[in-house]
Structures are given as structure tokens and as C-alpha cells.
């Protein structure tokens, strides 16, 4: 064995005698100085021998020592022990790590050992004290990991575990840390420990309070509230002030988050209602089958994904892009079919239209149920729709975020079509004065069919978006029909902007009411509000004015 060229040689016998509060200092020193591996080989051999006795107190001590040793395979050994993959040979008491692939490696060097099979070894057993030793050791070891994500997670873990013994390790790690985000996490973990550490000078504890206040989340609040009553008055006061500030910040954040959730719900409502705003608002047709158009769009997405799964799995992430035009065509085509065969005979008789389209909705639901079955269908989320991200401490899911973006796009598209295209011009002409439009050569019945198709098609692409956040079942549409009507009526029939304002208002109001009244009661309150509102302003928020308004 080469002689030690530097660093501390952890002598096991000696260390057992050391008071507990000095031991972490040794760990710290070991970690700071980063001893040369060769220097430790001998002592590691002693430490490893502790695992081979397979007695719990020895094992626990072994864990502590190996963690302090800074040995290159230390993390691997401790992890293996935690997962019951550390083993020893009964013959020569040497210790091995059994890989997840059953590859046996030497614990000391990490080199594969070819001539020993896992079943020739005995696994080192662990119990609860050993487990806690492992947890503590892992925290310290991971702080030294080369991966900044691991280091940050380790700091967070120490903060949550509130493990005061780790303070020196944290201090050492903080001195070494280059990555700013990891450094912040470490200093926060350190602050959480120092804030209750009576041995720290007051100035350090006050600084710790400030650090935690900066973090400003729910955990920091708990830590700040944890300051014991017997702490000096200055510390208590600062902690209380900081806690109050954090609380304020959290409640503001909560409000912002609710508003965002409301925006997200509002855009879902808007997506579902905007097609209705065209068929009901512009054409005056009560289309009770509107929800089923949404459902058709969702099932189109399902069919597209099924097709891609079997024939081109690589394109799965693009499935929504394929589904959008298809859903528009499917729902729009069905819509035009309904208009040509049923609704055109019922113009001017809104109540009859309502009944007939309800019949259509029943038939469509049953048709889908017959083809696809009545159970929920699994529609997958492409990669860009999954997961969530953090925005100033608010956690948002990508799917909700994209739906908001998508809704804005659909709304803009619709405004553009109605305002700037030739078709839009003709449509507005027919709405304003059907007879005059007809006499200047506009085929009014074609415009009717196309407009109904447009409204239905928009419902179809709404279905593509809703398939990402809702269950795809034959009843999907029924859940949206009443809400959609409420949005259109509340916003004012015939006004796209009114629909936008109404949907967002109702969405946000719903989410703000939810924490106060609960989800169901909140929804009921909203319904009651709309019912009362319509009594007061029967034409909605943005009522059409002038002669065309009277129907």
C-alpha cells in the first residue's frame, strides 16, 4: 500500500471516540481537501470490512465512514446498500457491489469481477437505523455529485429532512459551488438549519432569515414559523416579519395562479362556445348538437393517433397537427350535412330547430358509441403538451398553456375570416339583410350551409384541444353544451368579442369562487348569476343595437 500523501486518514478506532459534533467536521475536511484515491485505499479497506460483518451497528458506522472518506465509489456503495445490492463474500470478507444488471463489481475499485456470480455472495442486510444513515450519507454524497441537478436535489432533500448534522457538509459544498442556482439552493438549506441553531451568532441567524424570506415559498414559511419561542427577540421579530411578507407574497401568487387557471378554463369555454357564437349568434340557429361536433373532433384525434401508432409511430408527436384539419373537415362536413338535410327546413322556427338538433345529438352520440364503444378512449399527449413548467413560483402545465395559445389563434383566425375574406363579407351581408344580399347575387343558402359548417368545424378543432385535457367519451359534448350556451348568451348574441369577454369572465370567476365555495357550489353560483343576469339584460353584455337586433 502506498503511504498517504495528504488529507486526513480516518482512523476508525479513533473516530468512534470522537464526540458527535466533531465528526461532521472531519467529513467536511475530507470533502474539502478532496484526498487522492490511492491515499485512502487502505482505510477504505477497513471501512468496507465493517459491511462484511453484517451486523447492523457496524453497517451503519460503515456508511458514515464511507461517506466521509470521499472515496470515488462511495456514492455507488451507499446507493447499492440502500437498494439491497451490496454483498460480501463469506470466504474472504471482501465486499462487492452487484449492479442492476447483476454484474458483480469490487466495492473498493469499482472494477468488474468476472469469476463471482451474485448468488455466491451474501447481501448486506439493512434495518431502519441503517436506512437513516444511508439517507443522511446520500445527502452529503450527492452534494458532491458532478451533476448540478443532483447537487440541487441533495440540498433540497437536506432542507426537507432538516438534518442538522449536514450543516458542515453544506458549508463545504457552498464554498465549492460554481453553479449559481445550486449555490442558492445550498445556502437556503443552510439557512434553514442555521435559523434554529442556537450555537450560531445572532447575525448569522438573521441573515439566514433573510435568505429564507427571499426563497419565499410555502416551505420557507414553515421554516420561518418554526423559530422557537425562546429565541432572542430580534430573531423572532425578524422571522415574524419575514413570515408575514412570505405569506403576502404567497397569497398574491395564489391569486395570480387562480387567475391563470381561470384564463385556462375560460379559453376552454371559449373554444367550446366560439363555434356556437357563429351558428347561434350570427345565424340564430340553436344547435343542440354543437357539443357532439366537439366530440367528433376529439374522436377524430383518437382515430388519427390510432392510425399513426400502427403505421408511423415516429410521427406521433405531430398527431395533433394532422388531427386539426381532419377534425375541422369531419365536424364541418357533418355540420353542412345537418344544415342541408334538416336545419334549412326550419329557418325561422328556433324552437323546432332546437328539438331537431337535439335529436341529431342523440343519434350522433349513439353512433359514436356503436363505433368506438361507450368507455373512455385514451388520447395521448404529444411530448410538447406534457409536463409543467415554473413561472415566478407558479406551476403551469404545458397542455393548459398551449390551449390558451391555441384559443387565441383560433379566435384570431375566425376574426380574420369574417372580416377580411370574401366569404366573410358575404356572410355578413346575408346576416344583415338576407333579401338584399340575395338580390345582389349572393347565394344565400350556400352561405348558410358554409357558415354552419364553419361553426361546426371550429367546434371540431375545439374537440382536438379538449381531447388533451378531458375524457374522450360519447358524452364529452354534453358537458359543454349548457356552458357554451351560457357563454354566448352572457356575452351577447352575435358578438364574437362578447363571447370572448364572457368566456374569460366566467372562467376566472369560476376559479376565484372555487377556493371559497367549492367546485360544485361555485359552478351553481355562476349559473344562478347568469340566469339573473339574463333577466336583467336579456341581450347579453354586448347587445347588438339597431334594427337587426329585434328578431
Amino acid at each position: 500500500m502506498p503511504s498517504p500523501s495528504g488529507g486526513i486518514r480516518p482512523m476508525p478506532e479513533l473516530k468512534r471516540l470522537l464526540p458527535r459534533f466533531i465528526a461532521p467536521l472531519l467529513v467536511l475536511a475530507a470533502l474539502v481537501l478532496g484526498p487522492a484515491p490511492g491515499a485512502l485505499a487502505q482505510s477504505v479497506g477497513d471501512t468496507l470490512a465493517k459491511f462484511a460483518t453484517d451486523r447492523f451497528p457496524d453497517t451503519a458506522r460503515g456508511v458514515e465512514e464511507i461517506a466521509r472518506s470521499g472515496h470515488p465509489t462511495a456514492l455507488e456503495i451507499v446507493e447499492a446498500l440502500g437498494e439491497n445490492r451490496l454483498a460480501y463474500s463469506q470466504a474472504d470478507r471482501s465486499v462487492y457491489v452487484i449492479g442492476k444488471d447483476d454484474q458483480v463489481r469490487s466495492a473498493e475499485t469499482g472494477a468488474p469481477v468476472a469469476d463471482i456470480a451474485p448468488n455466491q455472495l451474501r447481501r448486506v442486510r439493512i434495518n431502519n437505523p441503517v436506512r437513516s444513515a444511508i439517507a443522511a450519507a446520500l445527502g452529503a454524497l450527492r452534494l458532491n455529485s458532478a451533476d448540478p441537478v443532483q447537487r440541487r436535489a441533495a440540498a433540497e432533500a437536506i432542507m426537507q429532512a432538516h438534518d442538522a448534522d449536514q450543516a458542515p457538509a453544506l458549508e463545504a459544498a457552498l464554498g465549492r459551488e460554481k453553479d449559481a442556482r445550486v449555490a442558492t439552493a445550498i445556502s437556503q438549506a443552510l439557512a434553514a438549519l442555521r435559523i434554529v441553531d442556537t450555537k450560531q451568532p445572532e447575525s448569522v441567524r438573521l441573515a439566514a432569515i433573510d435568505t429564507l424570506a427571499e426563497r419565499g415559498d410555502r416551505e420557507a414559511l414553515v421554516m420561518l414559523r418554526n423559530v422557537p419561542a425562546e429565541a432572542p427577540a430580534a430573531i423572532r421579530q425578524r422571522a415574524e416579519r419575514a413570515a408575514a411578507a412570505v405569506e403576502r407574497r404567497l397569497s398574491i401568487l395564489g391569486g395570480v395562479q387562480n387567475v391563470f387557471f381561470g384564463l385556462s378554463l375560460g379559453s376552454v369555454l371559449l373554444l367550446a362556445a366560439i363555434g356556437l357564437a357563429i351558428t347561434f349568434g350570427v345565424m340564430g340557429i340553436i344547435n343542440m348538437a354543437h357539443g357532439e361536433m366537439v366530440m367528433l373532433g376529439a374522436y377524430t384525434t383518437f382515430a388519427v393517433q390510432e392510425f399513426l401508432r400502427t403505421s408511423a409511430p415516429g410521427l406521433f408527436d405531430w398527431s395533433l397537427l394532422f388531427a386539426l384539419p381532419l377534425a375541422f373537415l369531419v365536424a364541418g362536413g357533418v355540420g353542412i350535412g345537418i344544415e342541408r338535410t334538416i336545419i334549412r327546413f326550419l329557418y325561422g322556427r328556433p324552437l323546432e330547430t332546437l328539438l331537431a338538433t337535439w335529436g341529431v345529438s342523440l343519434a350522433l352520440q349513439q353512433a359514436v358509441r356503436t363505433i368506438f364503444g361507450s368507455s373512455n378512449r385514451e388520447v395521448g399527449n404529444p411530448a410538447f403538451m406534457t409536463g409543467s413548467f415554473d413561472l415566478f413560483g407558479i406551476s403551469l402545465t404545458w397542455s393548459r398553456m398551449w390551449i390558451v395559445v391555441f384559443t387565441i389563434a383560433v379566435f384570431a383566425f375566425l376574426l380574420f375570416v369574417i372580416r377580411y375574406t370574401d366569404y366573410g363579407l358575404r356572410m355578413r351581408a346575408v346576416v344583415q339583410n338576407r333579401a338584399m344580399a340575395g338580390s345582389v347575387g349572393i347565394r344565400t343558402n350556400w352561405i348558410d350551409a358554409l357558415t354552419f359548417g364553419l361553426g361546426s368545424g371550429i367546434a371540431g378543432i375545439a374537440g382536438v384541444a379538449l381531447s388533451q385535457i378531458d375524457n374522450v367519451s360519447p358524452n364529452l359534448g354534453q358537458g359543454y353544451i349548457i356552458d357554451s350556451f351560457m357563454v354566448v348568451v352572457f356575452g351577447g348574441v352575435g358578438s364574437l368579442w362578447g363571447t370572448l369577454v364572457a368566456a374569460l369572465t366566467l372562467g376566472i370567476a369560476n376559479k376565484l369562487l372555487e377556493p371559497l365555495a367549492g367546485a360544485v357550489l361555485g359552478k351553481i353560483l355562476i349559473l344562478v348569476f347568469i340566469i339573473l343576469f339574463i333577466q336583467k339584460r336579456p341581450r347579453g353584455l354586448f347587445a347588438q343595437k339597431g334594427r337587426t337586433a329585434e328578431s
Partner: protein
Amino acid sequence: MIVQRLAGRLGLSELAFVAIVAGLAVLVPLANLTMPEGSLLHVSNASVVLFGKWMCYALLALSLDLVWGYCGILSLGHGAFFALGGYAMGMYLMRTIGTRGVYGNALLPDFMVFLNWKELPFTWYFFDWFGYAALMVMLVPGILAFVLGWFAFRSRVTGVYLSIITQAVTYALQLAFFRNDMGFGGNNGLTDFKDILGFQVQAQSTRAALFALSALALLGGFAAAKAIVSSKLGLVLVAIRDAETRTRFIGYRVEHYKLFVFVVSAVMAGIAGALYVPQVGIINPSEFSPANSIEAVIWVAVGGRGTLVGAALGAVLVNAAKTWLTAALPTLWLFVLGALFILVTLFLPRGIVGTFGAKFLGRRGTK
């Protein structure tokens, strides 16, 4: 006097209707209770309950026809009045269970014991007294209709807007009754009834009597509706249906007429619900579902709105078809119902009675 005057105004199909319903009210219980099983004339126990349900549906359809067929108010929330009446009756039936419930609590119904409630909510006070429950059967739907109509008709909410509002009301009520906190049994509703006015609910004689009562209630509802529509008030209602603005300009307070007929109709629907609940043995929030209300509308449309008899006939026909089809070809039923909605509105806007019975009827009420 009144009977004579009414009878004088009845058309052929209406006389036939009265005769048939009155006959059924007597014959079905007789055939059920006195004829031996296996006899051709025997009516099975299950059929008595089924027919009883149809009678209640017919009364509901009649009440809907009164507002829709004669006053142009298409309510998509009449199921709510029906269900409220049913709940009022259900609460009486729950209170009479007493100590015979699973938990044997003399005061609290089982579901309250289950929810660990200690006191009876005030909404349940007095419901152990039949007279009070019977009053509530009419009062609760009536008051809801009054409040709703008061605001809606005064603000001149008409046509599809009113339809959508009524649908939203029944939807909101459904959501509300699903909540356990409301104290009406939540999701499961009210069930496990034991007896009504001292008679066992399950007993065959009680069921036969309930059928007879339902048939009589249908007759009573018909008489009331007929009295209304053939009075001068009924003429004003029809005028409102056909030209609301013009009627207002002539000097009638349109909203008062509408409110009156809406409340009467709601009370009728409530009575229908109250008779329905002891026969089927359960009431739960699904009765509030908007789909139920709109299905009642199609009964009226099939039979012929503005004919009263047609509404009752439509209710029985559609439900008979439903009973038969859901057993024989369950997947087909929704297609048939959907097609019924479409075909009737397109090709038979006046319904069966309105189209084929027109020459027998005293034309009034058909558009």
C-alpha cells in the same frame, strides 16, 4: 254545472280520452287484484307499476303542453318541477320509515346517520306529516316557477332564451342535489321507502291504488288544463303565443298571464312527480338531468302540442316504445329517439293528434 259545461266543450277525441283513462283507473286495479294469475285478463304487478309511471309522465306532458302548446313557452326545465315534487314526496316517505331504517334512528333518515349528522336540517321539518308534504309537493315547484317566471317574463325573456334559462335551472339544481351538503341524499337520492299513509309501499294493493290515483290525477290535470284553455283566459294565452307584442299592445298584461299558466303547469308537474316516486321507489338527482326535461318535450311534440290529449298520448306512446326497445334492441333506442325528434319536427309539426285528429277537435289550440 262545471262538469256539464266542460263536457259540452269536449271534442270526440277528448271524450274518448276521458273515457279511456277513467276506465283504466278502474279496470287495471281490478284486473290486477281480482283476476287469477295466468288468466288472460290478469294485469301483472310489474305492468301496474309501468302503467302508473306512464300516467305520471302523461300528466307531466300535459303540464308541458299547457305552457308550450298554448302559451309558446318552451320550458326545457319541467323535469325540475317534476323532480321537486318527487323529492317532497320522497322526504315524507323517508320520515315515515322511522326506526325501521338500517340504523334504526327514529328521527334521522339513514343517509344522515351515515353522514354523521346529529340534527334534522330545518328543510326536513314537518315532513313526517302527510298534509304538509302534500302542500310542499305543490308549493315548492309553484314557488320556483313563480320566482323564475316573475323575473323572466317581466324582463321579456322569450323564445329560445327562456328555454336555455330553464335548462340551466334544472342543470344547476341537478348539480346542487348531487351535493351531500344539501341534505337530500346526494348522489343516491332517497329510497328504501316503507309505507305511505300507513299502507305498505311494496304491497300490491297500494300499487294498484297508486295507479288509480295517478290516472285520476291525470284526469284532474286534464280537466284543469281544459278549463283554463277553453276560458277567455285561454284565448288570451293563445293570442300571446301567436302574437305576443300585439297582445300587449291591445292592453293585456302579458307577463301576468304567462306567470299564471307557468305556475299552474309547474304545480301539475310537481304532482306528477309526487305520484311517480312511491311507485318507482326512488328519487335521485338524475331526475333533474336536462335530457329528461327535453325528452318530455318530444312526448308533447309527438302527440301534438296544443291538444292536451295529444300530449298524454305522446307520453304513453313514446314511453311504451322506449320500454319495448330498450329491452329488445337496447342500442337502437337512442337512434329511434333521435330520429323521432328530427322526423316529428320536420314532417309532423302538429303531432299525431294535431294532424289526424284535427277534424274531430274543436280546432282551438292547434296552430
